[in-house]
């Protein structure tokens, strides 16, 4: 028995995209085309060619000549920006779509989780959906029966197991869906970003369950945007870029490479070449930087200090009202908060072409300790058209030096929460001692 679980050789995948670009010259051409193209399409259809209802001549390669091997028991993470080919690779391995070229060998029973709760029907009860979903995921009926109680307990829905799931809260629904999925026990487990939903506590429970899976000698193939999860769950990671493998190695190194493609820090990202910069017709991203008050780019921020996020962009067409905005995600993938540019100078005003830097100032004693991942985006207002929307564009660490000036006070142990504001506290006290008036004491601010 070989110790290779997955062997991928020269896999490419081509997609047909786009519509007809040419402009019609005469009504006669238009009419002729209107009559001819259904016939052409019907012809193609009968020959078994993959075309949709539109004329699809343009192609893109979602994956190009990807080759690698995964050892038995390895937990491997696949990362990359949107459109890098991660999901395509997963779909090919799950046999949902065929590769255009290449060869793949999978040794062992394969279970794929591209979504939780696939096939759930709102009218069916929790119990019925468990059987249905289990069957869809490739579990045998006996297997589901055997694990039934365990799954129900894991999902924490014992009381509602015979209620139609349309009456479930969204949290219960997700927990049940996750629970079925988490009890899938294949030798090779293919997982998409399904863990990006649901409440944090339950997600952690699932991550732990998956970690167990890895330790039981199963091969796990994990596609995610959740960098900390990748770094902690996987020993190895592969970075895909435009359908090719850009980097393959230790997950911590690959995650680092992903976060800071060129600047040597995770706290800044620049696009010197406008052709590669994300953007639309009206505006284009130039750089995103995390910096301190004095303008120093930094990837480590003291919890007490305010921190600035610069979004530098070029406006290519004058006359649009623009709205730059950013989202901050924590290590669990939770959106901690979102912010949009409210500078009164430019708010609701069309902007002339030029280079702009919008800076969001996040106050000190507001963020929680840990890593924050930033999404930088910009949209025009009327109509709303997204110009760029870059996830995980920069990341930075918030640290507490434990000098007693943060919201922790003098406590140095575990401290939860998505944010950590330093609140004003007042404490009132009525002493038990007799014949003395009630005393009011309060801690000094």
């Amino acid at each position: 028995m070989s110790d290779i679980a997955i062997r991928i050789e020269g896999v490419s995948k081509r997609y047909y995209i786009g519509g007809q670009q040419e402009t019609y010259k005469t009504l006669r051409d238009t009419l002729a085309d209107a009559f001819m193209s259904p016939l052409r399409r019907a012809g193609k259809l009968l020959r078994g060619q993959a075309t949709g209802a539109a004329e699809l001549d343009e192609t893109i390669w979602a994956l190009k000549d990807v080759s690698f091997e995964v050892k038995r028991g390895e937990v491997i993470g696949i990362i990359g920006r949107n459109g890098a080919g991660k999901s395509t690779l997963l779909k090919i391995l799950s046999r949902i779509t065929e590769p255009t070229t290449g060869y793949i060998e999978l040794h062992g029973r394969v279970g794929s989780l591209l979504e939780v709760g696939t096939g759930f029907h709102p009218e069916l009860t929790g119990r019925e959906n468990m059987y249905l979903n289990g069957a869809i995921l490739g579990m045998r009926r006996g297997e589901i029966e055997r694990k039934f109680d365990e799954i129900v307990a894991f999902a924490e829905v014992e009381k509602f197991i015979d209620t139609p799931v349309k009456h479930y809260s969204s949290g219960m629904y997700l927990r049940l869906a996750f629970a079925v999925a988490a009890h899938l026990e294949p030798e090779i487990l293919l997982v998409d970003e399904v863990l990006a939903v649901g409440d944090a506590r339950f997600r952690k429970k699932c991550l732990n369950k998956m970690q167990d899976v890895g330790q039981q000698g199963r091969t796990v193939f994990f596609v995610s945007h959740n960098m900390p999860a990748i770094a902690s769950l996987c020993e190895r990671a592969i970075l895909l870029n435009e359908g090719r493998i850009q980097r393959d190695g230790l997950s911590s190194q690959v995650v680092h490479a992903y976060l800071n493609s060129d600047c040597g820090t995770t706290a800044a990202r620049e696009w010197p070449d406008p052709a590669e910069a994300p953007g639309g017709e009206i505006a284009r991203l130039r750089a995103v930087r995390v910096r301190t008050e004095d303008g120093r780019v930094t990837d480590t921020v003291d919890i007490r200090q305010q921190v600035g996020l610069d979004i530098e962009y070029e406006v290519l067409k004058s006359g649009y009202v623009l709205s730059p905005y950013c989202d901050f995600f924590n290590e669990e993938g939770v959106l901690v908060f979102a912010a949009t540019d409210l500078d009164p100078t430019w708010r609701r005003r069309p902007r002339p072409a030029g280079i702009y830097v919008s800076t969001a100032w996040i106050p000190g004693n507001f963020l929680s300790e840990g890593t924050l991942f930033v999404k930088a985006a910009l949209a025009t207002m009327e109509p709303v058209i997204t110009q760029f929307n870059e996830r995980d564009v920069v990341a930075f660490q918030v640290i507490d030096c434990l000098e007693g000036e943060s919201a922790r006070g003098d406590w140095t142990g575990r401290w939860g929460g998505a944010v950590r504001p330093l609140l004003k506290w007042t404490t009132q006290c009525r002493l038990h001692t007799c014949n003395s008036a009630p005393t009011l004491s309060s801690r000094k601010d």
Partner: protein
Amino acid sequence: MAQPAHLTPLADMETPVTVITPSHGWVALQLSKVWEYRELLYFLTWRDIKVRYKQTVLGVAWAIIQPFFTMAVFSIFFGRLAKIPSDGVPYPLFSYAALVPWTFFAHGLSQSSDSLVASANLLKKVYFPRLIIPIAAIFSSVVDFVLAFIVLLVMMLFYGIMPTVNVLWLPYFLLLALTTSLGVGLWLSAMNVQFRDVRYTVPFLTQFWLFATPIAYPSSLLSEPWRTLYGINPMVGVVESFRWALLGAATAPGPIVLVSSLASLALLVSGLFYFRRMEKTFADVV
């Protein structure tokens, strides 16, 4: 895949190897894969049955209302007013005996042709032999058939007509309706993935087909070489043989059933191959 995937040491287990390569042109049917996934087929059929009449006031009565009221309308207009002959059988029974398998066929056809598009989410997220989806859609129509069939038996009792021994053939005739429905359903469902035009064609097609089948009238209106040839429409064979087996009407429709069986088989086999050929594009196009 047969062994329970319990946590015995992995090394002891026989490891199945899956090979993925691009396919080209016509591919093997791999019906054994469908068998391998029979539990999923069972659950999907069961889901369709369970969910179909949820949130309806009349519920499962719909399975009977449709053929029964069509029969009533046919009896008034074709039986009473147009005085269409009915091979010596009371006209309501004559038309209802044909409407029961017809409704099964038409319902299975419309359900299966829409099934892939309706299951787009499954197609995009999970692997299993796609053939299961249209098959489950047709299997779930069997329940409706059974209910409508019970009403047919009640009507026969009412008119005092006893089924002949030929009723033993009935399962075969039902199978014939099923394969015809599936054959057409496979073609249409695969086409529907790419061209939603199919969705608009199906109601028109079934309506047209209804009148092209001897439901409101007997096929004995045709003279002989034509009557047998008429069997190229497989539903002619189904409808005529249902009447023959249950009502003892007319002569044995042997030649018609033979022609219909061959036509149905041709539809099914071509449908299977076409479906399998298009299968690889479903997830990308749907």
